[in-house]
């Protein structure tokens, strides 16, 4: 057993007054049930006011009450020495285990933790282990935890997490009682009034008082009987340095008693979790962050999980630091913006960074040549066109996403780019119109992955006011691209931004497309563009002939339109062929030339364009290839 716990320091020889009543009450509670009430108990006072006596008494009383209890008293310097020895001999684990088996750990002179980082981290681990298993820690220091310089913030929080009590200067009565106790202990006796006179003298600590008593005792031992009147001169003569009296002249006992009672009331009513939370708030405020998030928790009536709140706040701060660094690289003027100072604003800070990125490198836009004005409308694309017009009129509100599908050359690309151009002209749009083909999306992502600039690449699209992805089927089987599109889609869709997609087939037929994307695509409007009908074909041929063969004979366009084609590309190739033949023949584009071109075998009319009186049968779209079955016909009739 440590010397301190040998029974010299006990509660019954510790004089209790207003100045130490709270500390003693807390100490007794701890000794009676270690780990149950105030853990850790932190006692502080100026030097010589009885801290060491009190923690010795706590240890002794606890041991008396529960002899099997492992009680360890260690001044901090000894702790540091032992730690150094353990490190140099490679027995750090044994050192830790030694302390972790202790039921009541009493640490004195905790103020010497200042600047000892390794000791602090070791102590933090031991504290965590002890507190985690309900063991008691009692500490004594000459100042409160917050005033111990250069100590790890986490350790300060631990130190302050239980109860902090201070011991003030003893008042007159307590001083008299202490002096009388000392006399009994040392079998000294003085004339009446001597001790009282000594107690009336200003003194800075009990040690000083004890020193003065020793001086009187020495005079008595010389056979000199002291009178109360001599006390001051003897004691004053013994004082080598002027005492830094902490006693307040004429300090009122009544006021001291009041303060002591207030201390008890505060200790009873201040909840330790609020104290811990307050410390964290102060810490983050000092670091320049807005702590509204944490302050809200202070007003809760139920105990909040301070550690979890603080961890969440720290995560937010770390993210903000990252974002601010990124933003400053893009635009130094963004440094110190308010959004980077409030972990509640992480989303806003992210948006800010994305805006900065987008401003530097905007996403690809729609091709200006494709506009709605140059799009020829017809029966085959009218549904898609109306949907597109609705999307332009109210972006994100009606058909979101708008999924347009159809075979090659039916005008999907034209249509989606035209939607993009129309949206771009809308003032209400919150960002640029991103218009990208599926394959371009994949290629860009690969380059970004290579260069390690995925965040930046992603941010370009996140700021878009609308997103258009042409040939989205190019993402089939590209898992990472699909994942990126999925997140991008969610971000834009949830922000009410219009998404338009185009593919050569409906979502359900795109193989190797993740179900989460497919269901999202299906969730808007999926609309098909059919191969151009006869009227549309005629309009297409007329426009092309007007451009390339203005002198073409009347009726050529109508004749060419008789031939079904899959899309605009095929129309163009037919015109190419006709133009080529016309140039070879050295003449203009005539009906006969066209007939010959369409029917190279020499027959009067092309096989696919039979000479039938009723031309309506020439249009494949009007030929019913599969008659509906009986059930289908009944439904049709009912309609």
């Amino acid at each position, binding site marked *: 057993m440590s010397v301190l716990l040998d029974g010299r320091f006990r509660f019954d020889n510790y004089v209790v007054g207003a100045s130490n009543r709270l500390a003693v009450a807390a100490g007794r509670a701890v000794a009676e049930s270690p780990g149950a009430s105030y853990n850790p108990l932190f006692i502080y006072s100026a030097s010589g006011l009885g801290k060491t006596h009190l923690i010795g008494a706590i240890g002794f009383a606890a041991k008396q009450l529960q002899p099997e209890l492992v009680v360890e008293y260690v001044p901090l310097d000894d702790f540091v020495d032992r730690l150094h020895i353990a490190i140099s001999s490679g027995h750090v684990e044994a050192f830790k285990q030694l302390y972790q088996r202790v039921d009541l750990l009493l640490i004195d002179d905790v103020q010497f933790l200042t600047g000892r980082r390794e000791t602090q981290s070791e102590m933090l681990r031991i504290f965590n282990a002890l507190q985690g298993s309900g063991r008691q820690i009692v500490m004594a220091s000459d100042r*409160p*935890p*917050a005033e111990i310089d250069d100590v790890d913030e986490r350790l300060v929080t631990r130190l*302050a997490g239980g*109860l*902090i*009590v*201070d011991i003030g200067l003893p008042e007159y009565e307590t001083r008299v009682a202490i002096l009388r106790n000392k006399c009994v202990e040392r079998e000294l006796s003085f004339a009446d009034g001597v001790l009282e006179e000594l107690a009336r003298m200003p003194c800075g600590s009990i040690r000083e008082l004890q020193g003065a008593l020793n001086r009187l005792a020495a005079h008595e031992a010389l056979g000199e009987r002291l009178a109360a009147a001599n006390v001051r001169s003897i004691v004053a003569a013994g004082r080598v340095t002027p005492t830094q009296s902490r006693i*307040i*002249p*004429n*300090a*009122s006992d*009544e*006021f001291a*008693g*009041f*303060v002591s*009672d*207030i*201390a008890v*009331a*505060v*200790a*009873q*009513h*201040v*909840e330790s979790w*609020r*104290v811990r*939370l*307050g*410390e964290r*708030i*102060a810490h983050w*405020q000092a670091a320049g962050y807005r*702590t509204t998030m944490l*302050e809200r928790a*202070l*007003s809760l*009536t139920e105990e909040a999980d301070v550690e979890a709140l603080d961890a969440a706040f720290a995560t937010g701060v770390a993210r903000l630091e990252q974002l601010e660094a990124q933003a400053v690289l893009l635009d130094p003027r963004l440094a110190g913006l308010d959004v980077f100072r409030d972990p509640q604003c992480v989303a806003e800070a992210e948006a800010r960074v994305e805006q900065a990125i987008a401003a530097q490198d905007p996403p690809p836009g729609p091709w200006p040549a494709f506009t709605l004005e140059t799009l020829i409308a017809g029966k085959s694309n009218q549904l898609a066109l109306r949907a597109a017009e609705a999307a332009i009129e109210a972006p994100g509100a009606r058909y979101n996403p708008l999924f347009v599908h159809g075979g090659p050359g039916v005008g999907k690309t034209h249509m989606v780019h035209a939607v993009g151009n129309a949206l771009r002209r809308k003032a209400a749009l919150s960002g640029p119109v991103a218009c990208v083909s599926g394959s371009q999306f994949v290629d860009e992502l690969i380059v970004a992955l290579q260069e390690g600039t995925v965040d930046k690449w992603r941010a370009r699209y996140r700021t878009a006011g609308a997103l258009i992805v042409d040939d989205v089927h190019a993402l089939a089987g590209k898992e990472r691209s699909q994942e990126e599109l999925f997140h991008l889609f969610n971000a834009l869709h949830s922000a009410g931004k219009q998404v338009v997609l185009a593919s050569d087939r409906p979502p359900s037929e795109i193989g190797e497309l993740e179900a989460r994307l497919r269901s999202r695509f299906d969730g808007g409007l999926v609309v098909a563009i059919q191969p151009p009908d006869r009227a549309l074909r005629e309009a297409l041929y007329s426009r092309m002939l007007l451009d390339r063969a203005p002198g073409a004979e009347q009726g050529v366009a109508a004749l060419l339109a008789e031939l079904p084609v899959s899309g605009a590309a095929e129309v163009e190739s037919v015109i190419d062929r006709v133009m080529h033949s016309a140039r070879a023949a050295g003449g203009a584009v005539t009906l006969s030339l066209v007939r010959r071109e369409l029917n190279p075998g020499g027959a009067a009319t092309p096989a696919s364009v039979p000479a039938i009186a009723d031309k309506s049968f020439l249009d494949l779209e009007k030929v019913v290839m599969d008659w509906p079955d009986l059930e289908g016909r009944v439904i049709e009739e009912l309609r």
Partner: protein
Amino acid sequence: MSLVNYAAREITCKIVYYGPGRSGKTSNLHYIYDQVPGDRRGSMVSLATQTDRTLFFDFLPLDLGPISGFTTRFQLYTVPGQVYYATTRKLVLQGADGVVFVADSQRRQIDENVESMQDLHANLAEQGIDARNVPLVIQYNKQDLPRELILDVDTLDDALNFRGVPYHAGDALRGTGVFETLRSISELVLRRLSSTTAPSVAVGR
């Protein structure tokens, strides 16, 4: 002003001494002022008329030093007791964390006591405060006067303490009951630290 600021580690309590004119509110503050060590008290601000009646209010800031790591400050105010200073009373009452009602035990002052107590309740109600939620302690002052001049504590309590709040007999000039009263109200106020839902007398706090 807030009672406890966990971030700044400060506890600030505003306690208002209320009561009829000449009941001894300022005497309470003077006694406390005299007992407080010099480094713990701020200068007492007292705006009084030539006849020594409180014209506006007295203000005594007390620094209790660090308590459980909190810098603890008490601000003690008195209101002018005279009926015609109603506006000042309302102003001083704003933001109070607790109220000490100093009653004059003199037999002839009973009506003034009752009237002042009603005035306190009216002022609290005017500020939208439920008087039942405000910490209140009553001090029956001047109990040192000859028996024939005063009412005893029980009689006064029957007349004034219909809410059954803590009360103390006092002799503010000599200090009897002064610190007991202050201790009593302080404990009631500090109890609110652990029940943050209780409203204060503050407007917009």
